[in-house]
């Protein structure tokens, strides 16, 4: 006999949790099904939160080791990874507790197990103990997330050749690591490992990493990575990884280069989690690449079933998944969705951080031609010098008139926080002048906005003078 609820949410990651909370706030009876014993999804347990916690711990540790050396202290190398792992576990535990509390306060029923559709409104949930429950719901949200893509030609054994999930199960620091891929996950782990003293080599088809941001931002990452002893081998393709079915991680590239490393990390994208859901029984159709096809409200081919987050494809950001979850519920309930403006900011937690919002310099130049780019180097900011983080810069991408802000790009420590100020300007007036007229605290990194805006105004003055002279 089925338990009847108003909403069933499948998957307790960022998108699913937000959808469940939003539906419960509307007074609905909501059940959320999660395959793992703890809620949070890959974001909390295998992705966003762990990698950021690792990064922070690695930075803390590297600063500690530098200072220890300055004071002539001898530090045991074994300290490194135990510290990092311990901190990671504590961060995850406290975040899961907060999420648990939030769900409990919202009155959402939690069910542990793997779900599958048996009809458009009925789901069966089976947990590892073999217990089976049946649920019937008016509405369903599918938020089952994604998993690392495992190319068939690479023998990933999660021991010597890892994916971006199993890299978090490492119990000791390898001496060296080859990372296949030049995307966000690959570059974030490359930074973390290099900061911890691992000899890292990134191999990717693209001539430069992080193709979704401007070349100068990506170069900021490459420069810092190489300063840590890392290597980026762009324009390379893997021919084979020689493992003999075990641990030898000799990577042969089609260029003839041979890379020997203790571990290989394969970070070549992610695939949606739809296996086992039996979506055909629900009348849900698929798009290419294993994604669930949805309209701009997140509605699938079955009008009462929504899909949100990584399972519908890019941008696969936790922030977007949450927003999609909220909008899906509001749409189903016939309420206004109140679209968030200001664009979706990109935050890349490499060392140093990269962030961007709005239109990139490349895209703006292609669209408008002679745009203006104002730049503030962090080395010129008092706060950056005080914090001993002088590397990096902020740039404003501005229309040819020099008046309207189109986008912001930042490379440097604190970039992922600093970007939100630019996002708010884009969301509001969009006027560059506003950044000059606003009083910022001194000394702060936010000053970079004013410096870059003044650079824009200076360039416009020069252009005006040039035009007057020509006339």
């Amino acid at each position, binding site marked *: 006999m089925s338990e009847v609820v108003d909403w069933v949410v499948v998957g307790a990651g960022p998108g699913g949790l937000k959808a469940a909370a939003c539906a419960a706030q509307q007074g609905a009876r909501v059940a959320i099904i999660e*395959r*793992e*014993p703890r809620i949070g999804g890959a974001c909390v347990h295998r992705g966003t939160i762990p990698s950021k916690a690792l990064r922070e711990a690695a930075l803390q540790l590297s600063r500690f080791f530098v200072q220890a050396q300055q004071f002539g202290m001898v530090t045991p*190398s*074994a300290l490194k990874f135990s510290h990092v792992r311990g901190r990671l576990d504590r961060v995850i535990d406290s975040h899961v507790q907060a999420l648990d509390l939030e769900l409990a306060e919202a009155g959402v029923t939690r069910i542990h197990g*793997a779900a599958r559709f048996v009809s458009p409104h009925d789901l069966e949930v*089976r*947990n*590892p*103990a*073999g217990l089976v429950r049946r649920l019937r719901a008016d509405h369903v949200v599918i938020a089952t997330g994604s998993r690392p893509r495992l190319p068939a030609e690479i023998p990933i*054994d*999660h*021991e*010597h050749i890892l*994916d971006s*999930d*199993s890299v*978090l*199960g*490492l*119990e*000791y*620091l*390898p*001496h060296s690591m080859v990372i296949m891929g030049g995307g966000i996950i690959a570059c974030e782990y490359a930074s973390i490992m290099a900061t911890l*003293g*691992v000899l890292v080599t990134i191999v990717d088809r693209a001539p430069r990493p992080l193709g979704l941001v401007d070349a100068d931002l990506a170069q900021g990452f490459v420069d810092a990575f190489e300063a840590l002893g890392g290597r980026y081998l762009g324009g390379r393709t893997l021919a084979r990884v020689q493992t*003999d*079915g*075990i*641990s*030898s*991680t000799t990577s042969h590239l089609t260029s003839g280069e041979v890379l020997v490393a*203790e571990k290989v990390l394969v970070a070549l994208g992610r695939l949606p989690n739809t296996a*086992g859901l039996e979506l055909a029984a629900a009348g849900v159709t698929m798009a290419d690449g294993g994604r669930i096809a949805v309209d701009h409200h997140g509605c699938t081919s079955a009008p009462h079933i929504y899909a949100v987050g990584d399972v519908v494809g890019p941008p696969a950001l936790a922030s977007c998944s949450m927003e999609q979850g909220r909008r899906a519920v509001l749409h189903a309930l016939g309420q206004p969705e109140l679209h968030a403006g200001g664009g979706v900011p990109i935050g890349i937690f490499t060392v140093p951080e990269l962030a961007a919002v709005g239109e990139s310099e490349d895209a703006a130049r292609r669209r408008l031609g002679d745009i203006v780019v104002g730049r503030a180097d962090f080395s010129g900011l008092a706060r950056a010098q005080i914090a001993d983080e002088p590397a990096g810069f902020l740039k404003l991408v501005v229309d040819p008139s020099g008046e309207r802000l189109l986008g912001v790009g930042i490379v440097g420590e604190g970039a992922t926080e600093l970007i939100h100020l630019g996002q708010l300007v884009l969301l509001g007036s969009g006027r560059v002048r506003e950044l000059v007229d606003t009083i910022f605290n001194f000394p702060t990194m936010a000053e970079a906005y004013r410096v870059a805006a003044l650079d824009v105004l200076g360039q416009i003055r020069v252009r005006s003078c040039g035009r007057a002279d020509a006339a």
Partner: protein
Amino acid sequence: MSAALDLPRAAEGSAHALVARALADGALDLPVLPRVAHDVMLAAQDPTRGSAEVARHIERDPALSATVLRSANAAIYGGAVEIVSARQAVARLGTVEVASLAMTAAVRASVVDDGPYRGELAQWWRASLTCGLFAKEIARARRHAVDSAFMCGLLRLLGVPVVLRVLARSSERFDPAEVATVTRALATAAGMLLCEGWNLSGAVRATVAQGASTDAPPQFAEHVFTAQLGAAMAQAQAAGDLQSAVAPSAQIVALNLYPEDLERIVATGPIIARSVESLA
């Protein structure tokens, strides 16, 4: 330390009483783990010391070198080229894998002997190897902590040879059923003493301390449950019915293993059986 041991009571003169008294009095002739095994493990865990140092430590001990090479050429590693040196083994298998082989060889050399209970010891060793290999496959299926799973499974019942050693010192020869009973009852306490003596890792200590208990400390819960499930699979495989180990259990629930995960682990059974043949 011995005063703190809380051991089950048994009749004076029985095998149980003999071992319990030895444990309580601290009158144990604990097997000694060769110094070289410690050095190898430490070198493997220290990224600043490099693989050459691991190989150097192994080469210091000819008997250990020979055993490591025999293991490195076993079927489970499937290499086409024969490994003929410790340095080649390290280059091919990696420092952690070779250190693990060295530790396995050292444990075997330290605890398996030709005494009156050699049959029981051989059986324990085979079960421990199988348990370690299954534990590794379980960890692989969960994509977590694969590096330490084998050692936790291998050493889970480390107290068994200690108990058998005490019994072997006695002039009396005990009935196999009684030996099995006393081993089951006292192996955990004996294993903990050996963990201290050998300065084994926290994960291995927790695995030994828990025995079959499911009340594992959170920090090492996954190691404990992985080794326990590995032991259940080893036992089921020995009985010719590996499928019986994948019925829902506290360990399977705790490790959050679904039927498809368990199917993948069960599929490795024949490979593990062949590997045990070559490693035992």
